[in-house]
């Protein structure tokens, strides 16, 4: 698998949905495979809230890409056939312009002053990226969760630039419950004494405890009750646990470990910004709005839901398809039995892989 990582600079800047303007910005991009001569084999992967550009393979530091189970040579998204592109979204903290980057205007770190971005802003910046790569039309734009919202938005905003869109474990809007859960996570961050109203970088501290708590909550929502039960049960943590000696159960240890690890790498302002972008997404204020939004879609849509996903339940995917059918949009909807709750879209599963493969290859 031919992998490349590039930092692409956009001197032309971008005007955001909020009206704010970034004079210039950068996107860090990872690509896999080769673009064919007719530039028709491009696949754009849109990452979910905490993802980044490193979608597949093993990076120099040994970390495995977030979608490595499905993206690679001979995998569901086959890098031998397709030129696969994934960028860290604007406002992220893995190398693209975001709260941790230097504001070229001031020479200082943006911090909490990085403007709020939206799903539409991501799609617009990804479109600018496509132009830089010479790709007029993606064979496929695909993503799960918040990434699925981007894939859907792509098919709406740039109907002539998307051949197929894969919308996985996603919805046309964040639900009240989604917003509520995100707010608890944000509150945990804000109440960390090291958060300092978002100015922690200047003060050279990090609200690690807040991010950790936020992520622990997040992990509970990504998994299903059954999966947690099967994976951890009520088993007690071994006494020589390296993570924490204070916890009783394995599940506590798991959350402690995951939260701790995440808090080392993720930026608090970025966390707030990304979850706000997720909460703000709504192309379905009512049924008619969703249909109106879908009326110009030319791509064929694949909507995948998972039975065990209670964060973005499969019914939300069905809502998209009903609206698509009413607007004569070519679309399919399948619900699969992933074990991992909302996270199921990340994992390999025979039916899931077959569904994706057939969709990608179909005429």
């Amino acid at each position: 698998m031919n992998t490349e990582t590039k930092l692409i600079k956009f001197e032309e800047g971008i005007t955001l949905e909020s009206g704010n303007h970034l004079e210039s910005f950068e996107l860090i991009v990872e690509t896999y495979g080769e673009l064919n001569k007719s530039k028709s084999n491009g696949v754009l992967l849109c990452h979910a809230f905490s993802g980044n550009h490193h979608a597949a393979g093993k990076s120099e530091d040994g970390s495995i890409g977030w979608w490595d189970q499905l993206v690679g040579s001979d995998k569901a998204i086959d890098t031998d056939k397709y030129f696969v592109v994934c960028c860290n979204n604007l406002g992220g903290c893995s190398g693209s312009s975001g709260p941790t980057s230097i504001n070229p205007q001031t020479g200082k770190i943006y911090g909490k002053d990085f403007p709020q971005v939206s799903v539409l802003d991501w799609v617009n910046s990804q479109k600018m990226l496509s132009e830089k790569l010479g790709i007029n039309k993606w064979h496929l734009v695909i993503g799960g969760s918040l990434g699925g919202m981007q894939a859907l938005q792509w098919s709406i905003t740039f109907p002539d630039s998307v051949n197929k869109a894969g919308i996985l474990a996603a919805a046309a809007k964040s639900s009240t419950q989604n917003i509520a859960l995100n707010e608890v996570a944000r509150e945990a961050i804000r109440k960390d004494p090291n958060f300092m109203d978002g100015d922690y970088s200047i003060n050279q501290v990090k609200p690690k405890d807040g991010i950790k708590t936020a992520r622990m909550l997040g992990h509970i929502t990504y998994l299903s009750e059954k999966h947690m039960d099967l994976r951890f049960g009520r088993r007690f943590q071994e006494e020589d646990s390296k993570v924490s000696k204070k916890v009783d159960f394995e599940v506590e240890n798991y959350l402690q470990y995951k939260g701790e690890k995440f808090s080392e790498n993720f930026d608090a302002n970025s966390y707030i910004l990304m979850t706000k972008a997720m909460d703000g997404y709504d192309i379905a204020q009512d049924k008619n709005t969703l249909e109106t939004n879908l009326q110009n879609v030319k791509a064929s849509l694949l909507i995948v839901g998972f039975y065990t996903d209670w964060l973005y339940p499969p019914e939300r995917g069905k809502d998209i398809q009903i609206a698509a059918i009413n607007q004569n949009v070519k679309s399919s909807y399948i619900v699969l039995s992933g074990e991992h709750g909302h996270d199921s879209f990340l994992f390999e599963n025979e039916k899931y892989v077959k569904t994706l493969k057939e969709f990608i290859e179909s005429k």
Partner: protein
Amino acid sequence: MTMKISTIIKEWVPNKSKVIDFGCGDGTLLKDLIKEKDVQGYGIEIDDKKIISCIKKGVPVMKQDIDMGLDEFESSNFDMSIMARSIQCLRNPNLALGKMLSFSKQCVVTLPNLGYWRCRLNLATGRMPVTPDLPSSWFETENIHLCTIQDFEKLCEDESISIKHKIFINQNKKEGLLSKIYPNLFATEGIYLLEKE
């Protein structure tokens, strides 16, 4: 001449119409309709393997248990609904029929005939019918609401559904003379084109 049910259905479906096929299976019929009649077709299917076959063919499909109701389509408009050999498997065939005709101008229904003489003979000997067209025994059949041709036409009459066309097929898959004259006794299957009166 052997009649293929799909051939009859294809003839009834207008060019460029919007079609929904309940229980579309692997999408073969819809694929043909999309190719030959340029229809805007959607399939409804519950079996994942069949759904994946539809996706492979490029036939738009929705995973849905039609027995859970067809309420999702209340706001939709189709030119034609197709329900081939499925209506007898539903919990409320009469309600399903009414719903289909509320969101589509026309409706094609095909159903096995329990009045077929071999079924009657089975019953006369004291056993539930098992025929080439109804091969499953009573405890494993999906057909929970079997009816005769007469029963079905009575339901249409009661529900103010008009029968625009009907074709009856005999055990040799032909439109024989006997099945035409006495469908309730000699037809194994009825194929109907329905409209709301």
